[in-house]
């Protein structure tokens, strides 16, 4: 039964991937992309990788979906037909070669992992020293903390890049309001978002807390937080902050700064990014909560887009 389930799931994933590429209408392609993310989440669940499934469902199906829909809407508002132009055969061939090469490289990388790989067992023997039980969190925040630290700064850098394309008069104003223009829809989504935002705050806090022992963590929690913020902004329950708001900026740098600070503190104990004995779990959970706040705010602002002049807010985003 499990095999049949997995086979049907694989076919559906390939089907949705093909549909999202082949669909003539851009919005139809986005719909299939969201469905693809959801099904991929189920595939990770079926493989027993709940950590990845959480991230895939939250980022792939949730936040990327809304990003694409809003991007489509803004392009349409600017008069772009958002249609796929006929592609030249050379372009098709080049894309086929690049994608084919990537698939080969990925396959080689995956197949090079020997089935008798001892990495899982090695990590399992190291985990008790950290006082947490989720090996993924252990790898992200302790054994490979350097990668995670750099990733958090990359996310911050992405937001800086988005802000850098703000028009001169737009800086440092708010991003274009996401609030729905139709009064009836605004009331519906607004009321709904006032229920959803607290629920997503609780879920985000829960995911970070449970992430030390069970699947979850800062990225998953942060994405759920971003989802709640975005629905609240769409429903007009909250306004997006100005780019020079010091409270906003402190939230944005809180996670990476705290991670870096604790990492630098480790130098005093002998090594960058090492935790003092006995305080590992407390520090890891503290870093994760700070990171979740920063990631949530950063993702929400990445979706909201660049700051615009106040006058343009009247037409922007529709």
């Amino acid at each position, binding site marked *: 039964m499990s095999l049949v389930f997995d086979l049907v799931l694989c076919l*559906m994933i390939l089907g949705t991937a093909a549909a999202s590429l082949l669909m003539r209408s851009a919005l139809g392609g986005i719909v299939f992309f969201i469905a693809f993310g959801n099904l991929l989440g189920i595939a990770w669940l079926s493989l027993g990788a709940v950590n990845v*499934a959480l991230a895939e469902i939250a980022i792939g199906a949730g936040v990327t979906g809304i990003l694409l829909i809003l991007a489509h809407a803004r392009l349409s508002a600017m008069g772009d037909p958002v249609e796929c132009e006929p592609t030249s055969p050379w372009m098709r061939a080049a894309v086929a070669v690049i994608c084919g090469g990537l698939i080969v490289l990925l396959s080689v990388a995956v197949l090079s992992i020997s089935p008798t790989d001892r990495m899982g067992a090695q990590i399992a023997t190291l985990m008790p020293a950290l006082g947490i039980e989720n090996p993924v969190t252990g790898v992200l925040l302790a054994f490979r903390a350097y990668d995670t630290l750099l990733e958090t700064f990359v996310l911050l850098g992405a937001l800086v890049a988005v802000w850098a394309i703000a028009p001169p008069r737009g800086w440092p104003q708010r991003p274009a309001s996401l609030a729905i223009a139709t009064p009836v829809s605004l009331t519906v989504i607004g009321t709904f978002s006032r229920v959803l935002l607290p629920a997503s705050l609780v879920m985000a806090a829960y995911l970070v807390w449970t992430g030390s022992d069970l699947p979850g963590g800062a990225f998953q929690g942060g994405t*759920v937080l971003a989802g709640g913020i975005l629905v609240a902004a769409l429903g007009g329950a909250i306004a997006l902050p100005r780019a020079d708001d010091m409270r906003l900026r402190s939230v944005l740098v809180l996670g990476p700064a705290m991670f870096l600070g604790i990492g630098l503190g480790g130098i005093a104990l002998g090594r960058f990014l090492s935790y003092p004995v006995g305080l590992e779990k407390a520090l890891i959970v503290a870093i994760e909560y700070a990171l979740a706040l920063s990631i949530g705010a950063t993702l929400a602002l990445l979706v909201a887009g660049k700051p615009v002049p106040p006058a343009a807010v009247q037409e922007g985003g529709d």
Partner: protein
Amino acid sequence: MTGLFYAAAMALLVTVALALVRAWKGPGTIDRIMAAQLVGTGVIGVALTLGAARGDATMLDAALVATLLAALAVAAFVASRAPRGARKDGEDRS
């Protein structure tokens, strides 16, 4: 009991496939978005039944996350379809 949960997950996966057919055929954009919502709902069901079949309670968290974020796409879509010029009504509330 495990077999029963697998059968339920399988059946829900088939309903997801049917929803995908609706998303492909359309014909309207609203039909496609509603089909995407149906896919989302079906996927939550699959996650729940798969969690029951495997006896893994953490899969319920994945279902919860999917539930919380399912509304995002439809809210964004409604926002993107709002008529122009009506923006000022919404502006005072944001």
